[in-house]
């Protein structure tokens, strides 16, 4: 009988639209499966939760589940499909880089474990190096980025690697960091002409070009990429995509005097920050702080949700107070993550 109960919960989860609601229902199904010691259902349902959580701004459940899989795999290795497991493990590797609540020792242990599992399963560790290549590009550490790009390129591309579009987008981003615009455009051609695409590419590529040209003050060049990016965002029509990527366009919007659209974008994405990961908080706070700091007026009118620490029922905010608030959030993350990593890598680049 409990099998039917589980199937009912799964069916209900499938028709719901909200991914957190879906997760709640599947968690109920997990409880049933666990109480009956049904490992097969336990595996399948947990895999569903990870799949659903991918479409949320948080990562909490996936940690719990990978932990469960790691524990379970030693007892029931045949029940867990290694490839699915390693694919989700890769997402965790990327997430822990920006999660200061995970200690350096734990981070290193997890990375070592991941590399070991990939090698033992006959996969190359190309995705691990690609993650670090992107990470050091983000930190503007050119030497380290080159080191990891070389390591990545020395490994073969296999089923577990990041998709070609994502890898190429990382190369484009790095070329932009080096100010090699022609090289970046050449590399980006298959992405911008939609020959190589994925869920985030070429959206992210167009956003990166928009950011690059905006920072150079070449707004006409930026506009071309902005328009494509915004069209794609509108097609996706997903607040999470706005949160993950769309807020990177705030700088262009402010520089091109589109303040009201910038505020609307913040309003659309901000509610999802409530349960978002540290990485998304950091990126959003940084973009918002930067956007507000370029505004000239004393107060602004913007709809923040009522859980926002500085929430004002009349929606009118003192701009300086907001800038200070978001900068403090950014800096707090920077200190925490550098303390975790025992270095000054974030401080050197992003401290306000």
């Amino acid at each position, binding site marked *: 009988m409990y099998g039917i109960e589980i199937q009912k919960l799964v069916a209900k989860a499938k028709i719901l639209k909200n991914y957190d609601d879906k997760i709640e229902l599947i968690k109920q199904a997990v409880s049933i499966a666990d*109480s009956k010691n049904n490992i097969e259902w336990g595996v399948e349902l947990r895999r569903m939760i990870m799949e659903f959580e991918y479409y949320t701004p948080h990562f*909490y459940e996936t940690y*719990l589940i990978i932990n*469960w899989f*790691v*524990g379970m795999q030693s007892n029931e290795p045949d029940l867990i499909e290694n490839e699915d497991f390693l694919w989700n493990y890769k997402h965790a590797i990327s997430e822990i880089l920006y999660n200061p*609540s*995970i200690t350096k020792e*734990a981070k290193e*242990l997890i990375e070592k474990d991941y590399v070991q599992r990939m090698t033992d399963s006959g996969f190359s560790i190309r995705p691990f190096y690609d993650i670090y290549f992107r990470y050091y590009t983000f930190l503007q550490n050119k030497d380290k980025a080159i080191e990891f790009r070389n390591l990545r390129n020395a490994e073969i591309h296999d089923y577990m690697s990041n998709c070609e579009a994502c890898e190429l987008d990382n190369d484009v981003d790095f070329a932009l960091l080096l100010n090699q615009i022609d090289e970046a455009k050449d590399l980006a051609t298959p992405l911008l002409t939609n020959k190589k695409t994925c869920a985030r590419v070429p959206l992210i590529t167009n956003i990166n070009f928009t950011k690059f040209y905006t920072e150079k003050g070449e707004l006409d060049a930026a506009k071309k990429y902005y328009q494509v990016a915004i069209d794609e965002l509108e097609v996706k029509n997903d607040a999470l995509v706005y949160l993950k990527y769309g807020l990177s366009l705030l700088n262009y919007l402010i520089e091109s005097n589109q303040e009201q659209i910038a505020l609307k974008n913040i309003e659309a994405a901000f509610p999802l920050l409530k349960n978002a990961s540290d990485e998304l908080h950091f990126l959003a706070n940084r973009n918002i702080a930067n956007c507000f700091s370029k505004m000239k007026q004393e107060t602004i009118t913007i709809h923040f949700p009522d859980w926002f620490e500085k929430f004002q029922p009349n929606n009118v905010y003192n701009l300086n107070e907001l800038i200070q608030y978001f900068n403090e959030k950014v800096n707090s993350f920077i200190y925490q993550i550098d303390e975790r990593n025992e270095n000054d890598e974030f401080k050197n680049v992003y401290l306000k």
Partner: protein
Amino acid sequence: MHDTIEKALRKYGEIIPYTIHVVQSGKKTMLNEPNPCWLNPSAPKNEWLDYGKKTFNKNFISAFFIDIPEIGLKGVCYIQDIKTQIAHKSQSKLFVKNMLVSEKNENLLPDWAFFIQSVLNINDLSLTASRDAFVMDSFYLTAKEIIALEIKQKLQWIAQNDPMTFTKIIQSHTQSIKMLAVEDEIMLDLFKDYLVFETNKGHKELKWIKEQHETIYYTTSNDDFKQIKRIASAQNIIVINACYSFESDILLKIVQKYSNYSILIINPFDLIKKIELTPNEIQSDDFLKFIAKANECLEPYFCEAIISRFNPTDLPVLFVADEKSANQHKYHNQTKNSNNPFQNVIQNLNTAHQKPMICFNLNNELVRLLIFSDKKESIEPIVKLLYVQSLFLGQYPVQRNEMEVMNYAVTQLLKIN
């Protein structure tokens, strides 16, 4: 050919305001009914129901007539007698200016009315060039709004004047009605007394719950509810399982709107606090020593000991945990003694949350013997046995770790004897 034409005439011309006849071999047959029962507000309800059964090939609980002259709409709405998924869209057999446009239109009735099917004729809406859909202009949107209001009003009328039908509707479509009540205060006012909730005393109407209990408690987690229901009944407390969509929202709305309702959220720890021993009892030497020893035994399993009195008396222990602490307990035990690199991560993610409680029942003879026993060496194995028993009783997963604990405890007991 003849059959095809006849079929098309019957279908599309069903209510054309002129009679259509077919004459074949001298025999004259009328194909349509220009004044069908579903366009007649005075027709008996059973005629509407018969027409609905014939048209939609299913039975209905009830039917009601709607007439909205502002948009030139007339027809009958049918209330389905089987539970329908919320994702299912309400379907209408739709005529425009007396000509059939669609047998399964899904865009005219509100989303929440998925348990209603209708057959409608509408005069004032514009069709697209292909004549198979409406032009989505502002008039169309207003018309949709008016239709939604009309249906609400009809349901309200049924609630006040036809309680038997109303109860049947509630029984079949609780979820839909709850969704409706969350969105709309009028509907909340109308339906709230009849809404059925799962409680520790079975499925009960809110009206009954309110009459029997001054304070109503609810949980938003199914796991919490499972925990609470076993002890709440013995304390004569009523707890609603509000873990499903709209339920906690409805309860919150009721609290906001009606000051005579006392509705509070509760978790298993809150409930245990309500049945704790008095401070004097807690301070007794025997109890303090037992708690200290039991905590020492339970420490490796991420649990804490507590003594209470509860019914039934033959239940020696309860594993009390809310959803978070139960998860924490589960993951703590799974990661223990393994080379799992995520152990530290999970611990960091779950810090500062309350541990599950192993609640020893002072009404139980075994527990009393254990607390006041002189054989102190037997406390450890028995506490561990009771810990595993509490997991069994709470239907929590009992895996290899717990089986090892039980085997160890039994072995210890045998050695003592």
